């Protein structure tokens, strides 16, 4: 055996693959563990043979960036190995994501909780930007949450470097509702400010508990943005009418954020508005955001371990526990894997999990004396 093959085989032996927990567009995800320590991991198996251009760009980007980035708020890539024609990424195992948490109606978010999630998001993002990496797909579903409550930025399949200013990039990035106006107008020269806009819309979503700017098409997205924040003037955003895909959208008046976010503090709205400034160059940076008074003012951010946790995830665990004894339907082995976490985005909290979350909520109040 070649030295390279041998090294790979050794790596492979370090990890044990257990059951399938999910499926993305280009990968199947398994739960697994480190053989020596039993540490729980996620193994993302990417089939390579199926692409006519070889290793797929998303996989390449994900591996390239995660190999370099090590930060508490960025998902950790523990290892990479190959098996036959598959690429296996060993990632830290994360129980849930912010989308599940936002959608879980049984959870109550305190301002301190939102502040904590925002702090962790900005910390992770500041680290990416400091390393000259744009994420380009921030959304609640890509902010994963560990069992200890730590938030981790994940899914670097669209990420790229931006060290070269004035380098033309594609504007077809970022899921629509989280996409900034400059990209919707077709700007090809953009910066880390695109990620900040996404964080702003996530910030709003955490307060509203529904997507803040849910456009129905790319065109409608601009309208939705302008309806919420007012049509930008030339003074506010110089040159935007010259962008490649600019179209006049009609004049929408500015309504104060306060009208929608009635309960938010002045600091909160100030930071939110700075994330959603039209002119990308004036938008706050991740580094500046971390120094914003929102984060130093009361209430202090909740400790990650005290943040609301998803109940669907608890339900999924329960399912996993009975897995072994219950024969699912009767269609055979494949079914079992599909039941657990695969549908976690769709599943609603069971009655059982509701009682748990109420218990948690009481618990939570007890531990948050500041509020």
């Amino acid at each position, binding site marked *: 055996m070649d030295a390279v093959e041998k090294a790979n085989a050794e790596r492979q032996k370090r990890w044990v693959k257990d059951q399938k927990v999910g499926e993305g567009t280009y990968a199947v995800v398994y739960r697994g563990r480190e053989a020596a320590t039993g540490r729980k991991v996620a193994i993302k198996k990417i089939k390579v043979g199926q692409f006519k251009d070889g*290793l797929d760009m998303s996989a*390449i980007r994900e*591996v390239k960036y995660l190999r370099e980035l*090590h930060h508490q708020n960025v998902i950790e890539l523990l290892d990479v190995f190959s098996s*036959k*024609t598959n690429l296996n990424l060993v990632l830290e195992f994360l129980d849930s994501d912010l989308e599940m948490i936002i959608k879980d109606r049984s959870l109550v978010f305190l301002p301190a909780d939102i502040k904590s999630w925002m702090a962790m998001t900005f910390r992770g993002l500041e680290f990416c930007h400091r390393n000259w990496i744009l994420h380009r797909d921030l959304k609640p579903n890509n902010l994963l949450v560990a069992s200890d409550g730590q938030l981790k930025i994940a899914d670097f399949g669209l990420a790229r470097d931006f060290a070269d200013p004035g380098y033309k990039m594609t504007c077809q990035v970022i899921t629509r509702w989280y996409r900034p106006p400059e990209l919707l107008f077709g700007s090809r020269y953009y910066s880390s400010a695109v990620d900040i806009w996404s964080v702003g819309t996530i910030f709003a979503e955490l307060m509203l508990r529904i997507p803040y700017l849910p456009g129905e098409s790319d065109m409608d997205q601009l309208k939705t943005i302008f309806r919420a924040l007012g049509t930008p003037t030339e003074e506010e955003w110089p040159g935007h009418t010259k962008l490649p895909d600019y179209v006049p959208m009609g004049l929408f008046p500015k309504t104060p954020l306060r009208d929608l976010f009635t309960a938010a503090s002045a600091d909160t709205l100030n930071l939110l508005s700075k994330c959603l400034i039209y002119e990308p160059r004036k938008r706050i940076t991740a580094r500046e955001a971390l120094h914003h008074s929102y984060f130093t003012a009361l209430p202090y951010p909740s400790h990650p371990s005290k943040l609301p946790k998803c109940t669907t995830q608890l339900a999924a665990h329960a399912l996993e526990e009975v*897995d072994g004894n219950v024969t699912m339907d009767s269609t055979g082995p494949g079914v079992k894997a599909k039941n657990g976490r695969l549908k976690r985005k769709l599943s609603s909290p069971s009655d059982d999990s509701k009682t748990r979350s109420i218990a948690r909520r009481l618990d939570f109040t007890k531990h948050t004396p500041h509020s």
Partner: protein
Amino acid sequence: MAAETVASPPVPPPKQPLYEASTQFRNWRYSPEQLSAIRASLNAAAVAVIRQTFEVEEPGSSSIVSFLTPDEELLLVKLYVTKITQLCGLFRFPEEVEATAITYLKRFYLRNTVMDWHPKNVMLTALFLATKTTNNPISLETYTTHIPKTAPSDVLDLEFLVAQSLGFEFAVWHAHRALWGLCLDIQNLPDCPSDTRELYDAALKHIRTSRLTDAELIYTPAQIALAALSLAAPELAHQWSISKMPPDAPHTSRLSAETLPSIMDAIKSLITSSGHPPNIDSVREVDRRLKLCKNPEKVVGSQAYLAKKAEQEKKAEEKRNKKAVAVEQAIADGDPFGNELAERRPGLVDYDDDDDD
């Protein structure tokens, strides 16, 4: 309870040098002695294996083979470094692609030998991979139709091996980028000409030359950039170093004022002494001998290759059979997904794994 968070507002940790956190810094830097040792041991191991294979096919046959030496292997690799440059010119790929592909090729041969894998296809694969990792992808079809006598499979067959040999560490820090930063920085020096473009171009030539050497495997991009600038404009480079490292500064800095001159001299002499394309006749001779001493197990279609394939297939078959028996046994026990079983033999519940895809 939340006291720890209160005490530590979400301010990022102090800036750690980014380059020093990179995989390049941690995994791909060597001393010249280490490089020779690695190449010698890869070469020796390959020779031993190939000799053995020859002997199995025909006892006594290996004694007449003249295997390549580590230096000869290196010479061949160097030739293919120059081919990357040619192809990048043909495709008009950005500098980033070229520099990255060259790095990949060099790193590949710190894990493999040319007697196992001929650099021609490895080079084509490294370049194709580099277009993707630097975000300048083109379709494989476009790529191979523009290169004579090249089929898509020549590239695809090796892509995984190349990626694996690189440890899937695709990000590369380049000296030409460091040079760009350096040229912005020297504009603050009093003696700097108002237009640094000419200077930059002159220094860039030296950086391109350095790609033909081991420099990037030994020195940091910043060191190579400074050496290149020093070859182009010695006085300015000197002033810049002094401005960055006053002689009375604490010598904790990595690029300390004391060691810097000797590092600069070493890089400069490396660039001037080995920074030229290899002599075509000597490479041709090496390549001719390589045809006779390459590993037959890696030559698609050869007897040894087929034998190895058959052996691998047999092993896989055995594994599948063993697994099937185990699953059958489990079903017979009436508890195919049993907890107990799952705990005792974790592999068994993994019926959905990739053995058969």
